[in-house]
């Protein structure tokens, strides 16, 4: 079995199995946990609406922090949009999903996706360097932060190398490395901070409700 055969076959299959099991295990487990009851009387009504509002209000940049976090906020937005576009709308990725699920959707032209992917990769690198050089960010960062960024970075790097056929390695080796980097991301995803994909909105909801109970608009 060649490296590519292994990457396209067992590696990706088992990585996807671990990903799905891990994501559902943690999601269902968290949902079933008991919630703490508030010890004081609610100061306001309409808790659910306040929670939903907080879920989405945090997508916008608060004016008061605009100068301080504007750069990171903007880069975060562009990075996430770029990631989604590259993952779900690059032609060969659409083919991959069609191979798994049996259906597909329209893809974006390469001329659009490739620059988007390049910008996305660049932003991730900037954010990684910033995390390593900014004293405050460095202080609050741990292994999980760095490893999650690097594991997310690898599929972009190997993907670009594969598409452009960099002459350093044979195409099949590059393609295998790309698949393996995706497999690593899938395995790492449920058990790292990347799991925020699932927890970010419920967390905001709970935060919004808690604040609202205390009469604070968040």
């Amino acid at each position, binding site marked *: *079995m*060649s490296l*590519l*055969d292994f990457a*396209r*076959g*067992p590696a*990706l*299959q088992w990585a*996807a*199995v671990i*990903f*799905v*099991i*891990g*994501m*559902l*295990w*943690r*999601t*269902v*487990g*968290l*949902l*079933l*946990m*008991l919630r703490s009851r508030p010890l004081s009387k609610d100061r306001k009504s309409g808790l659910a609406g306040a929670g939903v509002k907080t879920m989405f209000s945090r997508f916008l940049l608060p004016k008061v922090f605009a100068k301080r976090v504007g750069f990171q906020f903007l880069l975060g937005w562009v990075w996430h949009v770029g990631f989604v576009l590259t993952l779900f709308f690059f*032609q*060969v*990725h659409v*083919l*991959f999903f*069609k*191979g*798994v*699920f*049996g259906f597909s959707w329209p*893809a974006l*032209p*390469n*001329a659009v996706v490739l620059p988007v992917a390049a910008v996305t990769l660049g932003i991730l690198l900037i954010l990684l360097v910033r995390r390593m050089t900014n004293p405050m960010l460095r202080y609050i960062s741990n292994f999980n932060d760095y490893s999650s960024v690097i594991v997310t970075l690898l599929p972009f790097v190997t993907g670009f190398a594969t598409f452009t*056929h960099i002459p350093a390695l*044979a*195409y*099949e080796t590059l*393609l295998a490395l790309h*698949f393996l980097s995706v497999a690593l991301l899938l395995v790492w995803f449920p058990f790292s901070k990347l799991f925020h994909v699932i927890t970010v909105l419920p967390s905001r909801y709970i935060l919004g409700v808690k604040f609202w109970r205390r009469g604070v608009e968040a």
Partner: protein
Amino acid sequence: MTRKELTLGERMQARGVSRRAFLRYCATTASLLALPPAMAPRIAAALEAQRRPSVIWLSFQECTGCTESLTRSASPSIESMIFETISLDYHHTLQAAAGHQAEEAREIAMKENWGNYLVLVDGSIPTGNMGYSTTAGESNIETLKRVAEGAAAVISIGTCSSFGGIPYANPNPTGAVSVSDVVKDKPIVNIPGCPPIPAVMTSVLAHYLAFGSLPELDHLNRPMVFYGQNIHDRCYRRPFYERGQFAESFDDEGAKKGWCLYKLGCKGPTTYNACAVLKWNEGTSFPIESGHGCLGCSEPNFWDAGSFYSPLSTSTRLNAGTVALAGAVGVGVGAAAGVAARARQKKIKSAPAKAWTPTKAEAKAEEESQ
């Protein structure tokens, strides 16, 4: 079978091949082997002076497609002349002799040319029940070992003898193996392909005749000059790949416009062969030019590397069923974890409040701080 009294040059003259045509062949061979043009006269001189070397062609688990490919090259071609001018002392399909006479011809050729003859093999070698494939009551593996022992080199013709090919495909009922799995102490050249390109076979022979050595080989023992680049890099449809213009089916607008066949499962990017350069049928075309993706037939295990019609960017094992099964397991594990967590939460809540007691590490830290 004729014997070998005349040189190749004399034989060609006798057959009416002009000096100009012969030199053109030598120049073409030099070009195919990526040798400098100055080497053409040397090839010509070497080939002209060559006495016909003895060649023994062994056919095992094969379909005769490789022989068909070689013999059906443009006729009469200078390549076929070269082929005729080697002393092909044993070949099941092409020899006139049969039965014991055929086997006797092989024995004589081996005895007279011990240590100097070439062995060409097409077909894989069964290692399971020897009855799967025998010749004159002898198993293929015994024949190969015995004949290869006195050979100067072994050339595996086609993917079956090079890598096992279709007989080797899962579940490999005959226990098929390649020549290199059996012969360990002789130089081996693999010329894979299903079948290989005729010019590649004759050029490797010409190289051996002209220089007395085998051409530079890659990590799979394939001649670098023919297998050094993948088909994708030399494909005339490559610009469409770069632009992301793909045929979605074999009869859609993209297919009619000659767009890239990647989405239809073309294995050109991972297949190393000279099809896109040398082409077939006197340079007429090659599979991609005829509208079908490359199957990757010159690569090991090409038969088991997923569907011919699945793009390379897809997984060969992952499917919706696997995802659904993993999802069900994930929900079950999550539910169990959730129930366990609830029980623990309840236990903690119902337990009477205890005074905080520091751990050993915390106590030590506190002592040190004081």
